[in-house]
């Protein structure tokens, strides 16, 4: 489910991380930081849900994320602490596509998801869990040759994620019975949105950059004579009291 480019990119990053024990330690710590932050976010999201089943599902995910964070942290400790930043930047599961609606794990953020319905929330969770599962599978494979304990840990995390995935699928199936179109649309949006968001972001950035460039050119060309004239005028404190029909003034933007 992880797109090819992302998979290749992640694989390269992970390949580098498995070069030596120090970088492996840093990776476990980064993963632990992401899991810990997600656990807190999922707890917060769970509290905001009216749907009891979804609340339980999120609670279970949060609880496991918390457990995974502790286990990954412990795994990092076995690598030794020399040269390892104790509070590293969390690992980005989304390949740089997290935004105000989803965290670095790809899970929905409670503040950005107030109006997110249950179906959309489940669809986002499914995509995030699939991505995470893929990543931990990769970690497990890479760790198998160099660090058997870490390999076992990754496999156990994958098993947990499989369990959550089946729960999410079951919940989506229930919704599919009544709102088949909504589920299809939500899943499509959740899968596509990272690409669309990235595409839109790129478009907006390039548009904004172009606009700023044009304004900068205007400043040094069109505004030059006005700027030179305006420099001579002086502001002074005093009265500029408006008079006239107050009701009519309300309609004016000036």
């Amino acid at each position, binding site marked *: 489910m992880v797109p090819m480019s992302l998979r290749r990119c992640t694989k390269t990053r992970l390949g580098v991380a498995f070069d030596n024990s120090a970088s492996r330690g840093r990776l476990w710590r980064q993963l632990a930081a992401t899991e810990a932050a997600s656990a807190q976010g999922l707890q917060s999201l769970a509290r905001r849900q009216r749907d009891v089943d979804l609340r339980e599902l999120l609670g279970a995910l949060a609880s496991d994320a918390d457990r995974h964070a502790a286990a990954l942290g412990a795994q990092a400790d076995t690598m030794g602490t020399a040269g390892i930043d104790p509070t590293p930047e969390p690992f980005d599961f989304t390949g740089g596509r997290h935004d105000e609606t989803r965290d670095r794990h790809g899970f929905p953020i409670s503040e950005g998801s107030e109006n997110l319905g249950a179906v959309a929330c489940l669809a986002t969770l499914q995509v995030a869990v699939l991505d995470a599962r893929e990543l931990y599978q990769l970690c497990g494979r890479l760790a198998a040759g160099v660090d058997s304990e870490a390999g076992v840990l990754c496999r156990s995390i994958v098993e947990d994620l499989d369990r959550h995935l089946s729960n999410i699928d079951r919940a989506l199936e229930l919704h599919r019975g009544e709102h088949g179109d909504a589920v299809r649309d939500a899943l499509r949006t959740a899968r596509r949105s990272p690409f669309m968001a990235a595409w839109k972001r790129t478009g907006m950035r390039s548009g904004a950059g172009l606009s700023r460039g044009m304004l900068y050119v205007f400043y*040094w060309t069109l505004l030059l004579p*006005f*700027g030179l004239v305006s420099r001579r005028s002086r502001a002074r*404190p005093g009265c*500029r009291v408006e008079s006239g029909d107050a009701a009519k003034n*309300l309609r004016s*933007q*000036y």
Partner: protein
Amino acid sequence: MRILGISAHHKDAAAALLVDGQPVAAAREEHFTGELHDPALPLHAARFCLEHAGISASQLDHVVFYEKPLRKFERILLHQLKAYPRTSRSFVRSAFAWLGDRLWIKNRLVKELGVEFDAVLFVQHQLALAANAFFTSPFSEAALLTVDDAGEWATSLSGRASKNQFEVLDEVQFPHSLGFVVSAITQFLGFVPGRDEYVVETLAAYGTPRYAEVFRELLPAHENGFTVDQAAFRYAFDAEQLYADSLASHLGAPRFSGDPLHIDGTDTRHADIACSLQLLLGERILTMIRVLHERAPLAKLCLAGELANNRRLVTQIVETGPFTQVFVPNAPGKSGGALGAALYAHHVLSPDEFGEHTSHDAALGESVDERAEPSAQLLSGDPGDEILRRLLDGQHIAWVRGRVEFGATSLGNRMVLALPSRAGPPNRLQTCLQRTEPFLPRRLAMPEECAKTRLESIPGRDLGPLLARAQIRMTPGDPSLRQASDSPDGTICPQVVTAASDPEFHALLQQVGTATDLPVLQVEDFALRGSPVVRTEAAAVDALQRSRLDCLIVENRLYERPTIEP
């Protein structure tokens, strides 16, 4: 008539709904987005107001924006041109924001809210602030003064109001702006302008006014009050750096965030700058008030604008006179402009309506959720008894009830409480909320009866409605209160609670008095560092987990921090 007021694009964006002249709902956007002082168009807040009143946007008669966008753009553009060619970067920044978004506010309101194009109205910024102060005051006739950073051109307005009639007597024009000078000095001292002005006000208590002469040169007196020496400031054309480098030749090197703060011992330079600024603010504003009183010789004054948040200044205005009654609304700044714009439009469009303003309740925001969180424990008895028991045990408690208050501070519905004599050092409560600066002001809640005996009264002045917005001196020879406050200049920020306005909180304070001989609690807004005041029960439980508070009581439900499960 249903009118929705909107304030946005500067800071503290807000929406307020008026039905037949009465405020029924008002909220700041920050409560919904979690971003402190959020300036974005308050669509969440507007939707909340409509939902609360049970109406749709199409049923609104008018949507009123709190400033005139074209006039403000004119001011910004002209000042960019005046500073040519130093403004290339700031021009691009401001022109991008204005041409891309702010100038089309009418279209955005029509599109986002779904109202008629003709239903969107605009009120001048200072008039909106003044209307907020006057129409929420208990007065039917009063002088008006707003002291703000800037709206369109005016930075300050003097006037008078009698029922529905507003008369503008004078305005101070941009770039002469006391609000921006305060923001510039806030930035000069290494704090965030637009957010940390209250910190500079607090620092003033630690210093002496040795830079007063410098500020007298920077803010020369004028027949209307003041002017500002533009050579020392850049705020007229640059929103990023508000002071000019030449200010350092007057006040020494600027402080940057993270640098040591010199407020005690042998070096009190930063506190001295803050103290000198506070002194000059008082001098200049008192001149404006004297001139205003000559032109509008009334007993009552309504004060608004960002500088009306300055408690020391408000107290100085009350002490010095000549106005004997002064009113400051709970939201005197930008967010109050939303309510003020709606109130002004209502009174202009319904000129024959001027009801008695009986509704002064600031609790206009969202109420706590009706459903409890799973980890809640139901209290069988009075929540007040449980709170008292825990306070006497030295616990720090968050107390959430009713609706969120509309304004800069919570007046009792979203508070954290501690008993000063039993809860450790005075700054412990602030530490629980992740605020670590040792010099932050401390608020003490006390019943009205206690305030009368333990705070210095000002002869001939009625402080009643102002007591939540002033900085009052403690009565000399009252060691217990002084110990609770530890303020360097013997003043406190009181939160005076009356039996009529908040019987539940009043009863709790009386019980505290019976148990400890001092009916005083240290209080703070229930807001973690960098976050707005909590809104809902779920947000309160969230904040409890992140804080070091001992427990949270929401209505009759108890949450204890260590035992909360997802």
